């Protein structure tokens, strides 16, 4: 290699690293300035830099899987309407169109051109979830997207540095929290600006006229690295089928994954049709979570960009619930989205069983609680002050082939919970329980992660409303390689009445909402689990003595130690067919 090409190779790498740092700064700016709690606490955002063709060159590591390539695809829609050639310095474009953006009206995507020496050099895009878009509020209950709030088609948010005041006024007039939503739109614009500034500095430092050469380097190397990993897998078609609870009828997610020399193609033909409620998924969001599921196993260290994303291609038949068309309601599209990684892992298990974890609780258990006038009207008592509280919680994750599943930990969502002390400080809700749920982890050589139990009351004794978005109540997380299923979830009142898993429901005065979150599936034969590990689980109250004996064939002494002899005897007695 000549000295020059060797040096340019080093420079390419340094610039690639820098570009990733630039978009990370862009994302951090968004997190620091955002109002929406899902952005700050849960990282429900994404940020990236694009070339003038709309190819993504780098995406911030900080961000949600739900936007993985949804935001990347969105930029193409922006460019189709507003070609790069016509953009001027200080222009900013925006949309929350669920089909062209990232799947529901709550997500706004903003695209801004970067100018250097009066020439357009690249584009920055970012997406974040705002607290409110009007309509019915976030939930599953809408029948059409029109009920879900204000829709902003792709249009300028600012032109040559001047904000689109008419748009802002419309937004303010249509949402419940005008100041914070407007603040979030400003913060989206500001984070692109921060990215642009850094990009210009970088191009100055490296004396770079265009991003083309660097872009080619990034895309080619990433494609190559992905294909190398994909080609190491046995080629073939792998099918999987996952049943979920749905709104009021159960739904089937059916996937065929083709692993071949040019990449991975996923097809969701056979999946259930659209729902009359707000759990439909636009294709772009399906692509995001399905692709994320693949990437958890394949190419997990390859940065996201047009090259790496292009090697995993996802399609679903139009009119299926994973490619729902307007005007289907899509507000709670995350529920099915969260099941797609498990659907993908079920396919990959056949190609790489030794690497693939069991199914987990998958869907977040987000408790949206409302109270006050209009919400809790079905009572003679004072409805109490108006409030709205969103908490994010998780059941157990699936067991891994070499490790137990993580207890009460979100996967695939990257969400963080909010402290219950903070939730109590800012709302009238008082929690009476938040603990691991014994025996909820699927038995296996590696145990599924346990779920948790949470109880919510109204501190003022008033009724309140839950907007339910729960799943895995009818269909538990399945184990793999003889591992057993995790426990079903339960949604109850304190008095023991079963509630629906979806939709707004009243919790009467002086009653409780009880959520028993599902556990993850187990991996491997539970009878092969190290008895000492079972004894530790019993000691810690994660597995009961009865379950230790029944599910694991482990007998403990009075003081909790393994009774080796009795355990060996019990394990030997197990019917033959279950063993191998």
């Amino acid at each position, binding site marked *: 290699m000549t*000295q020059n090409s*060797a*040096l340019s190779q*080093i420079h390419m*790498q*340094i610039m690639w*690293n*820098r570009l990733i*740092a630039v978009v*990370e*700064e862009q994302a*951090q*700016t968004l997190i*620091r300035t955002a*109002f929406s*709690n899902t952005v*700050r*606490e849960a990282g429900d955002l994404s940020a990236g830099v694009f070339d003038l063709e709309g190819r993504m060159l780098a995406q911030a590591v900080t961000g949600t899987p739900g936007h993985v390539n949804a935001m990347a695809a969105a930029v193409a829609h922006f460019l189709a309407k507003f070609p790069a050639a016509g953009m001027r310095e200080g222009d900013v474009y925006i949309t929350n169109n669920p089909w062209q953006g990232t799947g529901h009206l709550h997500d706004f995507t903003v695209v801004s051109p970067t100018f250097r020496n009066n020439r357009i050099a690249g584009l920055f895009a970012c997406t974040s979830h705002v607290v409110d878009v009007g309509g019915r509020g976030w939930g599953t209950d809408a029948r059409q997207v029109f009920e879900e709030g204000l829709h902003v088609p792709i249009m300028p948010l600012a032109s040559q540095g001047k904000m689109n005041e008419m748009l802002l006024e419309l937004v303010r007039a249509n949402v419940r929290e005008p*100041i*914070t939503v407007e*603040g979030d739109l*400003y913060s989206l614009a*500001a984070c692109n600006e921060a990215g642009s500034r850094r990009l210009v*500095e970088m191009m100055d*430092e490296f004396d770079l006229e265009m991003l083309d050469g660097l872009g080619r380097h990034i895309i080619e*190397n990433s494609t190559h690295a992905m294909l190398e*990993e994909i080609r190491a897998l046995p080629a073939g078609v792998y099918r999987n089928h996952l049943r979920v609870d749905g709104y009021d009828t159960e739904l089937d997610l059916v996937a065929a994954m083709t692993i071949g020399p040019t990449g991975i193609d996923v097809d969701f033909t056979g999946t259930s049709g659209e729902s009359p409620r707000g759990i439909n998924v636009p294709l772009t969001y399906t692509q995001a979570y399905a692709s994320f599921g693949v*990437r*958890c*196993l394949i190419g*997990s*260290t390859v*940065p996201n960009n047009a090259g790496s994303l292009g090697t995993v291609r996802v399609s679903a038949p139009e009119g299926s619930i994973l490619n729902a068309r307007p005007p289907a309601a899509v507000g709670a599209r995350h529920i099915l989205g969260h099941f797609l990684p498990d659907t993908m892992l079920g396919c990959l298990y056949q190609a790489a069983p030794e690497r693939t974890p069991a199914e987990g609780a998958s869907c977040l258990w987000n408790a949206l609680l409302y109270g006050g006038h209009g919400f809790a009207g079905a009572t003679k008592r004072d409805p109490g002050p108006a409030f709205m509280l969103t908490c994010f919680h998780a059941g157990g994750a699936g067991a*891994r082939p*070499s*490790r137990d599943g*993580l*207890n*009460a*930990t*979100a*996967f695939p969502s*990257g*969400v963080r*919970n909010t402290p*219950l*002390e903070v939730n*109590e*400080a*800012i709302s009238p809700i*008082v929690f009476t329980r*938040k*603990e*691991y749920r014994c025996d909820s982890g699927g038995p296996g050589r590696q145990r599924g992660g346990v779920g*948790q139990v949470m*109880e919510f009351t109204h*501190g003022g004794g008033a009724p309140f409303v839950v907007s339910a978005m729960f799943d895995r109540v009818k269909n538990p997380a399945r184990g793999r390689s003889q591992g057993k299923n995790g426990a079903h979830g339960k949604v109850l009142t304190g008095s023991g009445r079963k509630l629906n898993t979806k939709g707004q429901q009243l919790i009467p005065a002086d009653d409780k909402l009880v959520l028993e979150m599902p556990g993850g599936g187990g991996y491997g034969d539970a009878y092969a689990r190290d008895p000492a590990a079972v004894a530790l689980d019993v000691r*810690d*109250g*994660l597995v009961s003595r009865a379950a230790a004996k029944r599910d694991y064939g482990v007998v403990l002494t009075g003081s909790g130690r393994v009774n080796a002899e009795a355990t060996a005897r019990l394990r030997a007695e197990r019917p033959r067919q279950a063993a191998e």
Partner: protein
Amino acid sequence: MAGSDGRARLAVDIGGTFTDIALEVGDKLHSAKVLTTPQAPEEAVMQGVDLVLRQAGVPASALAFVIHGTTLATNAIIERKGARTALIVTEGFRDSVEMAFENRFEQYDIYIEKPKPLVPRYLRWPVKERVNAQGEALTPLDEKSVQALLPLIKKHKIESVAIGLLHAYANPAHERRVAEILRQALPDLWITLASEVCPEIREYERQSTACANAYVQPLMARYVANLEKRLKAIDLVGPLYMMMSGGGLSTVATAVKFPIRLVESGPAGGAILASRIALECGLKHVLSYDMGGTTAKICLIDDGQPQSSRSFEVDRVYRFTKGSGLPLRIPVIEMVEIGAGGGSIARVDALKRITVGPDSAGSEPGPACYDRGGTLPTVTDADVALGRIDPGLFAGGTVKLAPERSGQALAQAVGQQLNLDGPLAAFGVSEVVDENMANAARVHAIERGKDFAARALVAFGGAAPLHATRLAEKLGLDTVVVPTGAGVGSAIGFLRAPVAYEVVRSRYMRLAKLDIALVNAMLAEMQKEARDIVRAGAPDAVLHERREAYMRYVGQGHEIVVDVPVRTLTQADLATLQQAFDATYGQLYGRTIPGMEVEILTWTLSVASPTERPMPQALPPSRPTPAAHGRRKVFDAGKTDFVDYAIYLRDDLGAGARVPGPALIVEQQTTTVVSPNFDALVDGHGYIVLQRRRAA
């Protein structure tokens, strides 16, 4: 710390590998470095103290005081060698301390493990009680449920107990009563109240902090008592102060009560030293850059004050990955630490990219050029291959380097993979590590709402001066200062620290409905607590006080820290606080949101004894450049080729000496690279000040 009446002062910093001792007699500094003795750390301390006292010819009895910092608490946590600890919680909430944030700290890694809690579930016990966010008891404490724990404490041989009840930051009565009952029955039990060690809202972080405190307390108490005895035995009767992670000193009594506040004392010493240097050099905005064998630490310093924070993570499962450790809510000096040190190992990944760290070759086997069996190339190997380190002068000639080993290791692990010949592979490694540090520094500044413009770099630690000018070029900085004695920088920093203490209280309030009387009463109580503690260590000093409120717009998730006037507040101060919030918010985020309500979650109050504030010295008159000690070929980043560099010995350069780049300035512990874009000048303190030449 001031107030030694000109008597000699001693500082001791126990690190993982070395125990550093610094002795200051008048303005003369003596130092020693001895190997740490992990089994009985006081052994190394006594050895080093003896060494340095003899070196200076000062009797132990002449010392005004001793300041001590140690990683003992941190190591006990990392190695899980603390006390058998139990946690007492509100019934129904046994698992907050383990559930943490219910998230994964690495999005794409499905194999992560979370940090193991210090107190396993079977030792987390409930008591019947409940307090709400307003501090009202919803369920009174059922004392029988506390009594029921006594046999469990005995059965499980518990040495130390943390009590962490919900909302006890708002009303600690139940925690106090639980402690009373336990103490009465078991007078030897160590007891930590979460409402004392961290009276802050957010149950997970508070309980985590309390557990860590309880976990290290018996060990630290035994160690400090031992050390005091040993010091007395050699007639060292001056008081012993402990260095805390927030940058202040405390008495032994306070340290034993809250040992968790000692965890990051070493790095804090480094940051204090850098702050002091900033003041001495008249530099308003500084980036302190400490690069040693395994990590680089970067800290922002403004007006002589390092950035402070109340959150820290210990024992990260994934080194340097946020969220993978146990959170501690204690006052700390805020810095970012990345796996970029002289020993960090370089590789090529699947994408044909050079990666550096986070793992390190350490001192055994060390970099390949040490020729002690290490075959993996490190940053030091790259520095050797690029000619920046003169193998004959390394460590004053005491360590013989084998430069050919560097070349071989680099060729094998990097060069052959990427088809790069010798120096280019080394250049790639060096550029990547410098770029990593620059990127970490930029993101850190963004997170803290700070800018880089017009900052100077203060570079210390064995590897920093080798990389400082390149890092400055990458960050667009014009000035770099390389101080003297940087090898025992933390210990020297200890000598500059004030006696100080910070008290925190959480009370959730809307600013518009602020209960002024309640706030004043709370601040008065906090002031008394802090002053009493500081007075014990600095009886006669005029104390300096700072108050801060952690505020945010209603509904936001992160608070910003706003200065609060040090006086009794009046109704008129609602406007003062609003203005202070607006100003701080605007500075951090570039704008405010008019009309949006503001809430306060937490208040802090800190009291400190005064520190001497050095006046910047004028630069000494310029002296002619002394003759070069030698010359060598050094690979230059700008020219991307070997260039002729002059070699100077730092000891030969007196105040006023000027060295134009390109040059190497060699000293016992490090080498300063003066790139062709910089000129070096030795100032009145003996510091090397590197100034970027402006392009004409």
